[in-house]
């Protein structure tokens, strides 16, 4: 189930985000890691050390690209230079699929560099679908759109976030990067049951799963990627695996980054859910 046309039928296992504070460890110890996710924007330059580092990583590890500024939901068109550079990088990394967020963040050529939520409207669906299709056609690889954490809801919204996501991916015929931490954060901020979300997303389109930690404030939760994964998020992960089967899984840790081993060990906790799922399957086969 997890191997599907949205992740190029790849069984990637458990990866972590490639982050600068870990470079020394990675190059000196060469740890065994199933795969690394890179932030595309950090490597969309012309030359220099970022690309040299990337080439070294590519020699030894599998890499999947994850973007933070394609803004599939922005009403104004993307910068052609952005697309061109992204395609150059795709050719370099040979990423089997590419993900970015179901959000917006720029308007009229000005960038907020944030992942801003969309109003869940038919107009937003049309715009987003058009953009995803265009990017997918241009890059010629499968695209997965990721659900974001959000702190605001719009008066214009006509449906739930999971209905919106489903509509977009079905119409654009693309994959989903299901971030179960983001589902949890948004569920708390918008007062819905996160299981309703996980239980209804089209499982056959889930190309990849993100897990991460967050920060809780008095009146809201912020998606800070600076903590271990909490139990309720692991529960959502377990349910997602139950529905989707073993799926390429990635732990995001972006602030107050601990040692490589700490991050990697946290990610590898996902294995017990994958094993449990495999056990259930084996049992039912007998």
């Amino acid at each position: 189930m997890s191997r599907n046309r949205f992740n190029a039928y790849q069984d990637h296992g458990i990866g972590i985000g490639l982050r600068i504070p870990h470079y020394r460890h990675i190059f000196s110890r060469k740890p065994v890691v199933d795969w690394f996710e890179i932030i595309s924007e950090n490597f969309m330059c012309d030359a220099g050390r970022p690309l040299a580092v990337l080439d070294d990583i590519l020699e030894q590890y599998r890499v999947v690209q994850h973007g933070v500024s394609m803004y599939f939901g922005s009403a104004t068109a993307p910068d052609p230079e952005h697309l061109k550079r992204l395609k150059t990088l795709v050719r370099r990394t040979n990423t089997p699929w590419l993900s970015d967020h179901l959000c917006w963040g720029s308007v009229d050529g000005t960038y907020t560099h944030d992942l801003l939520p969309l109003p869940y409207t038919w107009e937003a669906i049309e715009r987003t679908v058009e953009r995803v299709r265009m990017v997918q056609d241009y890059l010629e690889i499968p695209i997965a759109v990721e659900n974001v954490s959000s702190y605001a809801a719009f008066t214009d919204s006509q449906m739930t976030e999971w209905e919106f996501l489903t509509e977009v991916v079905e119409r654009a015929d693309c994959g989903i990067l299901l971030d179960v931490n983001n589902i949890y954060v948004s569920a708390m901020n918008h007062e819905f049951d996160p299981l309703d979300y996980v239980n209804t997303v089209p499982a056959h389109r889930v190309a990849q799963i993100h897990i991460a930690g967050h920060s809780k404030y008095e009146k809201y939760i912020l998606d800070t990627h600076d903590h271990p994964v909490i139990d309720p998020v692991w529960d959502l992960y377990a349910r997602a695996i139950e529905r989707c089967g073993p799926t390429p899984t990635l732990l995001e840790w972006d602030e107050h980054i601990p040692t490589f081993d700490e991050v990697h060990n946290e990610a590898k906790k996902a294995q017990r859910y994958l094993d449990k799922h495999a056990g259930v399957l084996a049992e039912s086969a007998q």
Partner: protein
Amino acid sequence: MNLETLQREMAAAVMAPLTADEDMRSHAPDGRPMSEVAAQFIAPNSRLTPFERLEIYNRQYWFRVLNALAEDFPALRAVIGARAFEALSIDYLIAHPSRSFSLRNLGSMLPEWLVAHPEFCTRRHRLALDVAKVEWAFVEAFDNAERTPLTLDQIATLDAHSRLGLQPHLQLLVLEYASDNLVLSLHKEHMKGASEAGVKQEDGPIAPVQLPRLRRRSTWVAAHRLENAVYYRRLEREEFLTLAALRDGATLGDALEAGLAQSSKPGSRQPALVQSWFTQWAALRWICAQDIESLLNN
């Protein structure tokens, strides 16, 4: 509200400056109460008003862009102090919000903008201009393109009418102080990265750093990259002027004339001097064939 209007309204609100206490301002830049602006498109929940929900994004935006700028200009921040640097950054980002998908380009207009804005660094304005230039040159030298350089043999075949190109990562700087050394001593070399999270970083010291007494002294510097590391290299004035003329598209003959016209170096020593420049430039891989764009312009 259609999608485009909503995004324009929300982006304007998110990018509006915060109060001194890092809260969202009560009024939008156009004078409307921000609570009304927010309620136009944002729904409340049981704990937060539309204003408070929008405020989360307003703060995230500023924390993120201010962090990014501080990462690119750590020496400027140290020279004028963290508080002045933040005030400067806010005014700069209001004038020049990001126009690029990458935060890498956020500070590209800062050295130029700072010329007309001495108010953030009165006592050290000229020095601050230098430092901003040196730090931005680092960003450009760090990851700009590298073209195939000409070899010394190829350079030997050139004549006075030849036009050349310089490496895109090579940045030529005229400074009023020897601020390249100052920046180096204040710079902890680091690489930058984008992430999904927008959180506020811990603050460093607020006050400007103590500096040794710096005397004004015209200084010519090349920031460039060699084997993926960025270096600042001092140039002689004549050498700088020649390179600058080449970069601007002058023929080799004209560039050398521009470089040596006001030189105090005796004419008899000039051929040897020029030869030593080219030997060094070739070793540093600085000299390329003219690129197609400038060929078309000429």
